[in-house]
């Protein structure tokens, strides 16, 4: 069951460092064979694991609502599966955690209908970070807004402050969390832009799922890199920031509605 350790035990008595590095490498290799497309992308962008993230990068997303299929919730399911969040109950309860949701829109005057996913917008000036009394709500150097659950006291002030209803509070005890995504009762949580995947050079689960479904409605990339596809698209086409009036400069942008 746990063969890799034994492998290295046999190879040398001084195990730890080498063994661990080896597992790391073998994991990456396995990843390469399982999902080549993802890893090719990853190799181009991933940082060495011992290096801190920097503000040279700003991760962002561009969501094209004209490509977002009505009734498709693949991004939502992929997110919840990836992050170990249980899918909303039917009918949904207001205590369910929802990191991403499909919002149905209908123009009040013309009746035109749209549908698009909404999640944490990863603002440059996040109100949730401003109001957090302990600093548990914070923005990483690369623009990803996270909750440090180690110092979150569960006051929910960030939920009051967020203009996008992006955050959820864990109302009940949880078990069997994903090892990559710790989450638990009494703390606030939200979309992490799949930070654990981004750090190893992969795309967020929702983006991958949308591509797999053939819609390609969510584009993920580095807003600071003028050569990235997302930066080029934003530079050449009209895009929208949700609640642009608040001047928060979200990392998630929309087009097509």
């Amino acid at each position: 069951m746990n063969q890799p350790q034994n492998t290295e035990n046999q190879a040398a008595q001084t195990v730890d460092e080498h063994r661990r590095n080896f597992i790391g490498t073998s994991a990456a290799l396995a990843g390469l064979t399982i999902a080549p497309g993802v890893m090719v992308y990853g190799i181009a962008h991933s940082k060495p694991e011992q290096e801190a993230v920097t503000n040279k990068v700003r991760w962002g997303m561009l969501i094209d609502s004209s490509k977002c299929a009505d009734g498709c919730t693949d991004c939502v399911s992929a997110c919840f599966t990836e992050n170990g969040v249980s899918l909303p109950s039917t009918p949904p309860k207001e205590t369910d955690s929802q990191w991403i949701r499909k919002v149905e829109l209908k123009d009040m005057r013309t009746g035109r209908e749209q549908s698009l996913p909404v999640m944490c917008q990863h603002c440059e000036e996040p109100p949730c970070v401003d109001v957090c009394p302990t600093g548990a709500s914070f923005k990483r150097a690369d623009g990803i807004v996270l909750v440090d659950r180690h110092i979150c006291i569960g006051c929910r002030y960030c939920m009051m402050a967020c203009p996008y209803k992006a955050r959820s509070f864990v109302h009940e005890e949880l078990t069997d969390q994903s090892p990559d995504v710790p989450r638990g009762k009494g703390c606030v949580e939200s979309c992490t832009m799949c930070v654990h995947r981004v750090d190893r050079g992969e795309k967020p689960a929702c983006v991958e799922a949308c591509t797999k479904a053939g819609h390609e409605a969510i584009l993920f990339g580095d807003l600071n890199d003028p050569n990235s596809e997302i930066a080029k698209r934003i530079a050449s086409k009209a895009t929208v920031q949700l609640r642009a009036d608040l001047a928060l400069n979200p990392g998630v942008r929309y087009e097509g509605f």
Partner: protein
Amino acid sequence: MWKWTVGIIAVLCLSIAYATSSSAPSVGPKIVIDKSRAGDRCVEDEDFMRRNHMKLLMHQRDETMHKGIRTEKYSLKNCISCHASTKDDRVIGSDEHFCQGCHTYASVKLDCWECHANKARPKAATATLPAATESVAGEKK
């Protein structure tokens, strides 16, 4: 006043003596470290780890959380991968589980597992490939 102090100290000494003599075999946490899973050595010396594992974890926690540094050596996931019980892959659940056993003994509340997975991730997907042949050799040892 003195009488009381002496009395209290005497009672304390006696109770410690009692605890260490009569129940000697059951003193100390029952910790099972399965070497087939954990290998021979921890990431640092045992003595150092006993006293400082919490500092290493705390440091690593902030590095990972805030800076995205995901080195494996001192990560909680790495602790679990070696120290999980071979029976159910967990580090808590009973006093024979690695984390819980010692923390119960030391009366230190564990807060990690309200959020963190306490179960080692099945390794099948990541590492079966290179390890398949050598695992037999490992068991011989």
